[in-house]
């Protein structure tokens, strides 16, 4: 802390921050001048620097307001094609990552036993030396688990892990592996299409939470605004089908609940009607296979199994055909079952039937572009891939573990026994900025800069109409004695000597970044010098070529056999389905150390600062449970205790729990708060994509003693005496 204070005084001109806090009136105020003037800083005047949001993988462009060396606010970059100047709650809260009181301030070495959480500060030299030593010892046996990174850092890490014969695993718990697999099986490409919501006039969504966290929520938000009110005379109609009324579903004109896991069956029903009533024109290739697929069940059967009436199925099919530009999405709970990939392929087939492929207001792919930095990054890993990695650690073929902004011990269900990796790893190095659940198991921590302090770039070619190659630059000087992960890896590579040194000759990630961008910016043969172009790029926030032609896609949907979802736990002992969903603010838990996000009320339950169990009112009544009661949820794999919120928009046979809480570490705001629903989940996978079926475990709920006051924004909701109010006046 002392160090930090002194640094600040040197760097910053006016100690004005003190005066903005109350209770300091009696202090003597000093004016501390700069030693050397910084031409970019005018005291009292804000500078805006472009950057790229790295809170999720959408890659929104941002601009950061900086005054006197401090970042004040993050807003969307108006010129950026992904988010058009808008930014979600989580992106804006990135500031509290930068200024988080629990950030690691320098390299740490474990003391005491692993997992005890005791560390002592060391110097970078010590840390690097030890790490390089370990890299030598465990040559060819290292692995790295990281949150998805892209751009230069991705290619650096890929190159290095490649040279070290290491294994690089990019894991994201909401990486939509199911969707990627389904799209690959349907359209033969790994790229995700651009879902042209803005120009659609009818949207049928099978659970896709596109206004919350799905793929690129801000760009979907922008498109949703246009879809509803952006065109004169046309207002898009939106139907959402899913067992729980999500935030996205609550925006729909109609929410159709159905039995969990039967989304694919409903898609078959709709397709069947489309085919039966001749409402679709298909190529001969598809006609036979589709007929086979879509006539496997009778409509009556489908209606019983999905709990959606036959009339509704017919109506949906007819609405789809009478719309000019209908679009169908699938995701969220539909993808979170053991049959997730099949379901999504069936939904893709529906999109083919309504002619949405390659159409305006449908699914579009752009021609692949050569990005400034090569895209040689591995695909995202599924949970099964992680299991495979764990196996390698168990066998001893991997012994050195690197962690970067990934917290598998928190995001994976304990039933997967991923702690095997930590038990068997002989040495664990983490580059994370926080002591999260996994990093606190590390032996050596070499903390990275915050994204706002470091150079980087993000390549986004999925789910947008034009590629966005965004740059992020350090908008504030590093607060602490941390080092950018890229620089640290380059340093290590140089210490390891040839041949690594030759493959990555740069000293810093910044050098590497610039040299890579040089090839692109000069390739676009403009008369200006690279430096000018580079400065322009930084001012713009990146590069996004326009007029990218659309790619013709071949649909390769095979003949599909629908299989019903499988659930762990028998229905007599565990009568309820369980659906843990990513929280709007905390996502899978990475936002849990940001007080703004902790205090952000969940939009539907209005809960804050904690966890809760959502129960349908009828179910709650049958179980004799009142709002605010404490319950224990038990599955065959674990149990959690939390208070109940009665949630009217939930399938009666289902409970829902927000993810993101229940950290064992991760700083003062997150630690020990709420419960982690992952504890309940068993090893249930969607075989095709290898994704964990988060909706695939059954549970039971029982009331236990006690009750607690869960913070809620809705005052009346806290109090069962007042109950629920129905009036909405003129909304």
């Amino acid at each position, binding site marked *: *802390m002392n160090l930090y204070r002194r640094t600040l005084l040197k760097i910053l001109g006016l100690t004005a921050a003190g005066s903005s806090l109350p*209770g300091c009136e009696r202090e003597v105020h000093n004016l501390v001048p700069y030693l050397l003037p910084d031409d970019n800083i005018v005291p009292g005047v804000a500078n805006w620097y472009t950057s790229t949001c790295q809170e999720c993988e959408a890659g929104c462009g941002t601009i950061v307001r900086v005054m006197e060396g401090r970042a004040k*606010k993050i807003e969307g970059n108006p010129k950026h094609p992904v988010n058009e100047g808008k930014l979600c709650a989580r992106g804006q809260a990135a500031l509290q990552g930068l200024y988080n009181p629990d950030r690691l301030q320098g390299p740490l070495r474990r003391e005491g036993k692993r997992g005890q959480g005791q560390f002592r500060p060391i110097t970078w030299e010590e840390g690097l030396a030890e790490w390089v030593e370990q890299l030598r010892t465990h040559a060819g046996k290292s692995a790295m688990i990281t949150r998805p990174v892209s751009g230069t850092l991705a290619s650096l890490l890929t190159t290095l892990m490649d040279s070290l014969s290491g294994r690089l695993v990019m894991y994201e718990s909401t990486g939509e592996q199911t969707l990627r697999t389904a799209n690959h099986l349907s359209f033969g490409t790994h790229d995700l299409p651009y879902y042209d919501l803005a120009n659609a006039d009818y949207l049928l969504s099978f659970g896709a939470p596109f206004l919350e966290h799905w793929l690129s929520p801000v760009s979907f938000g922008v498109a*949703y605004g246009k879809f509803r009110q952006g065109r004169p005379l046309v207002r898009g109609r939106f139907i959402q089908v899913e067992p729980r009324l999500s935030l996205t579903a*609550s*925006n729909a004109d109609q929410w159709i609940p159905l039995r969990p896991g039967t989304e694919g069956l409903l898609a078959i029903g709709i397709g069947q009607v489309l085919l039966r009533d001749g409402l679709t024109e298909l190529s001969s290739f598809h006609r036979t296979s589709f007929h086979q697929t879509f006539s496997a069940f009778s409509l009556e059967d489908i209606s019983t199994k999905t709990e959606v009436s036959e009339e509704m199925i017919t109506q949906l099919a007819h609405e789809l055909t009478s719309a000019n530009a209908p679009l169908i999405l699938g995701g969220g709970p539909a993808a979170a079952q053991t049959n997730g990939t099949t379901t999504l392929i069936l939904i893709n087939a529906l999109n083919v039937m309504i002619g949405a492929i390659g159409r305006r207001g449908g699914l579009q792919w752009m021609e692949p572009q050569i990005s400034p930095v090569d895209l040689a990054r591995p695909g995202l890993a599924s949970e099964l891939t992680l299991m495979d990695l764990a196996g390698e650690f168990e066998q001893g073929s991997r012994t050195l573990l690197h962690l970067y902004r990934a917290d598998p011990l928190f995001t994976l269900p304990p039933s997967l026994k991923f702690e095997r990796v930590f038990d068997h790893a002989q040495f664990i190095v983490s580059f994370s900025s926080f002591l999260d659940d996994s990093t606190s198991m590390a032996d050596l921590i070499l903390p990275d800069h915050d994204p706002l302090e470091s150079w980087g770039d993000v390549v986004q070619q999925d789910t947008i109409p034009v590629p966005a190659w965004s740059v992020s630059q350090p908008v504030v000087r590093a*607060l602490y004695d941390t080092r950018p992960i890229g620089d640290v890896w380059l340093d290590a590579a140089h210490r390891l000597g040839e041949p690594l040194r030759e493959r990555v000759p740069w000293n810093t990630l910044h050098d590497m970044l610039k040299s890579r961008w040089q090839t692109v910016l000069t390739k676009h043969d403009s008369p200006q010098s690279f430096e000018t172009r580079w400065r322009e790029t930084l001012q713009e926030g990146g590069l996004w070529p326009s007029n990218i032609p659309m790619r013709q896609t071949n649909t390769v949907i095979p003949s599909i056999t629908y299989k019903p979802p499988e659930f762990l736990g028998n229905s007599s002992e565990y009568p309820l389905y369980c659906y843990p969903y990513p929280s709007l603010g905390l996502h899978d838990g990475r936002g849990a150390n940001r007080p703004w996000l902790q205090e*952000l009320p969940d939009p539907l339950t209005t809960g804050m600062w904690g966890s809760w169990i959502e129960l*349908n009112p009828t179910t709650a009544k049958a179980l004799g449970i009142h709002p605010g009661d404490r319950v224990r949820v038990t599955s065959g794999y674990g149990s959690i205790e939390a208070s109940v919120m009665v949630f009217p928009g939930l399938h009666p046979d289902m409970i829902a729990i927000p993810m993101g809480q229940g950290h064992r570490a991760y700083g003062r705001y997150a630690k020990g708060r709420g419960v982690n629903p992952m504890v309940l989940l068993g090893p249930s996978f969607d075989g095709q994509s290898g994704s964990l079926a988060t909706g695939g475990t059954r549970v039971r709920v029982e009331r236990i003693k006690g009750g607690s006051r869960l913070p809620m924004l*809705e005052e009346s909701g806290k109090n069962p005496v007042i109950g629920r109010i129905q009036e909405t006046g003129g909304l």
Partner: protein
Amino acid sequence: MSQDPQATEEYSKTAASPYKWEMVVDLDRCSGCEACVVACHAENNIRISGEEEAAEGRAINWIRIERYWEGDYPNVKAKFLPVMCQHCDDAPCEPVCPVYASYHTPEGLNAQVYNRCIGVRYCGNNCPYVARQFNWFDPHWDEPLAEQLNPDVSVRSGGVMEKCTFCVQRIRSGKEAAHKEGRRVRDGEITPACVQSCPTSALIFGDRNDPDSRVSHLKKSRRGFHLMESLGTHPAVTYLRRLSE
């Protein structure tokens, strides 16, 4: 702020100010994503209340998304209503303040002067929109979270009422920029933090005195209504009804 004589004439001598700031909330666009809430917290130095105070119902939000349930499963609907200070032309909070901490600016803003407020909280009672929030304790930020605080906005001490200002600091700097260039503020030049962040563009802000501003156009929409119109508070926030069949 001081002006050249001509501008002064224009600003203070005429009863009507050149600007009248208003907002439109399109409920058909609002998705309830709460980007505005965090934007507001970041911009306006809103305190972090913490779990305990939040449980006591004391979490401060200048803009909140109210959620109203309608119907029962399976025909249940959740409707969102963003509520912030409505900057009423006939604001009930203004006449009741014994010390003039709450007053109306010539530009139609309902102002709260924090350093004048002594915390009798009458204004809070009298606001039918429950837009006013009170600082029950002194604010606190764990170091170094306070580095983020916006120097353009006062940090409110305990015992003081606060509420949405339509981001007056942004209005002020927008007007200064326009004034230095000797022109009026252009439509869309000034955006409060919530409006700026709103992904679906459900919030629109502008000058009602400019007949061509987006706010002026949207206000005339047939979907438009005011919250609790019958109370006669004449809010500066117009809501556009959510459409449904």
